[in-house]
């Protein structure tokens, strides 16, 4: 059980990713003009990519 895979760290990471995903999905919904299922699917996947990049970016900057 290293420091990174301790349940608390995993929970924190998942929480951060989820928060970023929700914010970016909301941004996607604001950007598009008409909402239908395909838009939601594409928006959800793009928000997921953005959330992963956001977390990677934050860790890359704070990691020394």
């Amino acid at each position, binding site marked *: 059980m290293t420091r990174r895979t301790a349940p608390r760290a995993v929970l924190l990471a998942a929480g951060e990713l989820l928060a970023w995903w929700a914010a970016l999905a909301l941004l996607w919904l604001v950007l598009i003009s008409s909402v239908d299922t395909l838009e939601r699917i594409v928006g959800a996947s793009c928000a997921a990519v953005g959330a992963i990049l956001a977390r*990677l*970016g934050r860790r890359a900057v704070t990691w020394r």
Partner: protein
Amino acid sequence: MNRLRLWLLAVGGAGLAALLVAACLDLPGFGGRRHPYGDRAVQASLARHTANTISSVNFDQRAYDTLGEMSILFAAVLGCVVLLRQARDEHRDRPEPAEVARPVRRYALLVLPVALVTGLYVVAHGQLSPGGGFQGGVVAATALHLLYLGADYGALERVRPLGVYETSDAVAVCAYLVLGLASVLAGTAFLANTLLPYGTFNTLSSGGTVPLLNAAIGMEVASAVVVLLAHFLDQAVEIEEEQGS
């Protein structure tokens, strides 16, 4: 000798000016709505349920030209990669960490995903609203470099494995070609937009193969720009010449 060249330039310039003026005199009125090519392009794009006529022209009616543009960008980045590689008498230093003001770093970390999602939005809605693969790909690639601007080059290198972007560049070019060949296999012409149903107008699935070609171009431009900037940044920040030589 110099005077002769100037005279030649003057004569040539005058001839060019005369021809230009003559050509401009019978141009159609400025800002007119009717144009032979425009009417047919709009008609063809509406027939294929593509709301953005420019994307229809780019990725459907003249998709072969876009194949040329894509290979130009690919070759240009390939040329830069070859030219900007690390020479034998150069060595590569570790990029040193830089202390950037806290608000600027926080802004960069905040706008990084927003710019990436906006870039993907521009690529995905290429056939609906203004934008498309080229513009969205550049925005997505620029978003990644906010890490360099907000922090330092080391942070960007940790997030950006260069091999992945080079392969995704090649994969995107091949995806574009495979889409073109698919319509040949389906019995129609190369890059013809007869493969997929045109879907309902003004939705994400409209336009047949236009959104797929858009996505391929978006991926190709994004990874090409990342590779290009990577080699420019390496030269400017990391690669040092041996002082001895």
